[in-house]
């Protein structure tokens, strides 16, 4: 029994992530962080969101990161969602900059690139890294198809799809897969990666295109399918935060499922699998 335990603790290593996948993963990490933060700086130039083609159809924006001044001249940050006001001083609407000065800005300076209110520069960062995101994405999809990474590792099998319920239960109980099962992504993981690669990222890019007055002219009216230019801006914003939500869950899963093992596998490629041991 003791011998089994020793081998059990050691487990076996296998080569999980190929070099291109690791490389493209970390490029994506850097690119997405910069896109989010420069995007928030761009948002701060007009920190309100609308639905429809335009911003001035007589309907107030449904989200505003603004401010108000009381009788004593005290400025507070106000987040208005569907007409309801929330005091968010210090974080949204009004916050301190690196020098500690309170100022009116939608998102705080520590969340934006550049840290200062600087639309022209934020746009430069955003569009340069947007190109990297597109190129990296094209490379990833091309590589995944050519190397069959997509078919082998990411597309759920029929068996996978039948086990969604069981997988949900496993996740809720934080039960870690062992042995053979740990060599593959589980079905929820596969669906999450698929939707990020083929739904969220393409959508956020497409919504970026939709804000371009030049690309709007490519097929007049296509932006209207998504509700209009201001809707497209709103969807771009929401999908960006959906990607943040994915990242939080992703990192959480990495931490609870063996932080060092997972991190190492995304750096060196090698992942350690714990063999299946009976519970007795």
């Amino acid at each position, binding site marked *: 029994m003791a011998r089994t335990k020793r081998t059990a603790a050691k487990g076996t290593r296998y080569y999980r992530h190929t070099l291109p996948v690791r490389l493209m993963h970390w490029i994506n990490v850097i690119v997405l962080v*910069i896109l989010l*933060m420069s995007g928030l700086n*761009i*948002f701060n*130039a*007009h920190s*309100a969101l*609308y639905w429809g*083609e*335009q*911003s*001035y*159809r*007589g309907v107030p924006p449904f989200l505003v990161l603004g401010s108000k001044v009381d009788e004593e001249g005290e400025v507070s940050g106000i987040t208005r969602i569907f007409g309801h006001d929330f005091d968010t001083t210090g974080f949204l609407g009004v916050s301190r900059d690196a020098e500690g000065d309170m100022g009116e800005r939608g998102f705080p300076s*520590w969340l934006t*690139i*550049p*840290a*200062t209110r*600087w*639309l*022209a*520069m934020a*746009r*430069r*960062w955003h*569009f*340069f*890294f*947007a*190109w990297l995101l597109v190129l990296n994405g094209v490379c990833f999809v091309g590589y995944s198809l050519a190397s069959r990474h997509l078919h082998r590792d990411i597309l759920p099998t029929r068996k996978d799809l039948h086990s969604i319920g069981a997988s949900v239960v496993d996740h809720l109980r934080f039960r870690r897969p062992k042995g053979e099962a740990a060599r593959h992504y589980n079905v929820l993981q596969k669906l999450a990666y698929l939707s990020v690669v083929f739904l969220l990222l393409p959508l956020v890019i497409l919504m*970026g*295109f939709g*804000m*371009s*007055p*030049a*690309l*709007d*002219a*490519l097929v*007049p*009216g296509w*932006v*209207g399918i998504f509700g209009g*230019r*201001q809707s497209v*801006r709103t969807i771009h914003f929401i999908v960006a935060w959906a990607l943040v939500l994915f990242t939080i869950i992703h990192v959480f899963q990495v931490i609870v499922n063996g932080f060092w093992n997972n991190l190492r596998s995304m750096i060196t490629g090698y992942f350690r699998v714990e063999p299946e041991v009976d519970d007795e």
Partner: protein
Amino acid sequence: MSEKSRLTRRNFLTRLFVAASATALGGCQKLSESPWFVKILGFGEKATRRVQRLVLPRKAVAQEFTEAELSPQFRSNGTFMPRNPAYLAMAEGGFAGYRLEVGGLVEHPGTFSLADIRALPSREQITRHDCVEGWSAIGKWKGARLSALLEAVQLKPTARYVVFHCADPMGEDGSSPYYESIDLEDAFHPQTILAYELNGETLPVKNGAPLRLRLERQLGYKMAKYVMRLEVVEDFSHIAGGKGGYWEDRGYEWYAGI
């Protein structure tokens, strides 16, 4: 490994992560201020311009809307009342003394009164104005086709850009007049007009009276208001900051297609 040392390692890593993030953020600010890096970032704009010009047919038109979709109030942005005594005096007189100067690389330089401009082939369009800040508004514009004006003065073979010199000084002291420039592909686009009417009425001062540019496939800052003089040039590096526009001289992209 004891619980204590694990916590210290976690603490250490957290601190390392926070320190690294702070350094990275400070680094982004520093990089934004270093010319070489800004130049690299500028490749994004070049790529965007090339690709958009490649995929977009020359005459592809921006979406047009119906009267029902008009913004109740067309927002004024940037200058709403030029700090320019000569302009204000002219506005007082209903722009009767206004003359648009057209010069540079043209065969027949000259001046045009508002009546001359109104006599040129015109176009009316209900379009969406997209500001670089993020907002949009829909307005109905009527104006002279820029192509008709340029055909009237005949461009010289070396002509490449049209520069719009404006009456509104951007500096508090009356300095730095607004200006913009577009290339000939945009200048001859059917929706490129010198607008003199907004929503069926004479263009108000806050929206750029008596003439403003409409360039529907680019962002708002390209659409110069209070246009006083057109200068056709081969390149614009000798004008003001040399980047082809007031905002371009302050870091915005010359090509504002996105």
